[in-house]
């Protein structure tokens, strides 16, 4: 979907993320990476944006009941948005700490749940925003300046 927005071209792609489906986990991030490459975005920015997309996708697969990953590209920036339908993060500040994780043992056995997801997304992005409400869901936004 393309729209002319205050003179700036905006391109949006939305990917549906299924909770607990490890077969297709990572596919959205992989598609986002291909997309950015075809747009000719700088390699360093692609790297950071795709790591963030991967972490955000895995977060939703592991922790949420499902949601969407959205990428918005304009001539000046890339905005990665992740929104899910719950359960929400109880203590966002704690979740942002490196090594803190609420992942179950079975997820950890798969090699996930090291508690680095959110801190990694923040580290990779130029601007980071997260808000969450218990029972409602989580909204995460990471911006990358082109």
């Amino acid at each position, binding site marked *: 979907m*393309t729209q002319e927005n205050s003179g700036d071209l905006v*391109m949006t792609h939305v990917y549906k993320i299924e909770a607990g489906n490890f077969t297709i986990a990572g596919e959205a991030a992989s598609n986002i990476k291909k997309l950015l490459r075809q747009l000719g975005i700088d390699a360093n920015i692609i790297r950071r944006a795709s*790591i963030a997309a991967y972490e955000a996708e895995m977060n939703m697969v592991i922790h949420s009941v499902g949601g969407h990953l959205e990428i918005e590209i304009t001539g000046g920036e890339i905005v990665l948005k992740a929104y899910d339908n719950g359960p929400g993060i109880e203590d966002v500040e704690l979740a942002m700490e490196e090594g803190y994780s609420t992942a179950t043992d079975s997820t950890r056995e798969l090699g996930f749940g090291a508690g680095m997801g959110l801190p990694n997304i923040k580290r990779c992005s130029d601007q980071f925003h997260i808000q969450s409400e218990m029972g409602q869901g989580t909204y995460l936004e990471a911006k990358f300046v082109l």
Partner: protein
Amino acid sequence: MQTYYHSVTLNKNKCMGCTNCIKKCPTEAIRVRDGKANIIAERCIDCGECIRICPYHAKIAVTDPLSSINKYKYKIALPAPTLYGQFKNLTSIDKVLIGLKTLGFDHVFEVARGADFVTEFTKRQLKESLSPKPMISSACPAIVRLVQVRFPELINNLTDVESPMEIAAQIAKKEFSEKHDVDKSQIGVFFITPCAAKMTSIRNPIGTEKSNVEGAISILDIYGPLSMAMSKISSSDPIPSLQKSSLKGVAWANSGGEGNALGLDNYLAVDGIDNVIRVLEEIENDKLSDLDYFEGLACVGGCVGGPLVFENNFVAQNRLKKLISKMDAGKPLSPEDVDRAVDTYNWRWDREIIPKPVMKLDDNILSAIKKMEELERIYSQLPGLDCGSCGAPSCRTLAEDIVRGQATEFDCIIKLRKKVKMLAQEMIELSDYIPTGNERNSTLEKEREKDEDKRFSTEDTP
């Protein structure tokens, strides 16, 4: 405008225009156009996958003939360790080296010996380099180019140490010219290669201005003459000891040999280009930053699986393992040897690896976004069969080619069929309206007559 040299080329006469190679190419560098395969030069990484898959042997690797060594007054052979795995019941590497000398080489310098040096150089880099982890081996030239084309984000992870072949060539040339007091320009150094990508690195080097190697002779080409020469070496003759490589250097021919030689615990060795791609994707997603070293080799089994070898890769791998198990450890390089080599030779790349953004749709991001939307629109209307009949490896690639102006949607035979059917239907319908002149038996006319008859008859009835 940069021109590209590639060892991998097409023999047009043999090409049947089938879809085998386009499907197998890891960089989507082949299209079938006008019934023949076409290699997109800037995308090709010379991995040789298409050579292996082509049932008509239409894909070939251009290498130098053995006779080309005669252009030089002094000839040096650089055998890849893979060569040793080609011969049944080989008890001594010296036999291969002597065989090469009887074929006309004045001197033989093992690439396995070069590998011993590269191992030491890389150890230093691992200690000193600040490049991101894991460090990615640059020993396999096809993988280096794969990173350049498909994983430009990982260029900084590549080690900048020269290949064993380049190191061997430098040492061999220097030692020979000093020992025999001859000018380096009179020496021709030839690599005995299992691999097309190596040939490309000689003609069109990456990371350095000019290769130290003059040419490459494929193992397939030299296998016949060399086995003949070797069979003439009588077992009663005393065999002079020429071998200088260590067993760890020889083991570089097999996947995992490099990592093992480096003495690392925390390394990962993966062979087969599809497998390597999957791991590089993991590295790209930052999932393997706890790993020190990644050794990725394009061919299954490592260099023993190269497209230009004679022997089955698994058989050759096993033979090498047996050969190595019988070898003495050999004299390891002393720290002084290594220090001297570091000061004497160009052991690091001196040119930056520039990303090749071949996937990019346009230089301008706004135009690229527009093209991307167009691509998505076209793609959504393609059948999604990925049949390859259009000449592109997948529907997605066809959509890309259309956006780039290199194909049309009617290259898709499914779309073409639909369109032809629609047009045919339309033609049939239209044909009814064609005026027929004096012919009185046309359907339209008959109907008209019938109508008229009816009218008359109704008028007649009271």
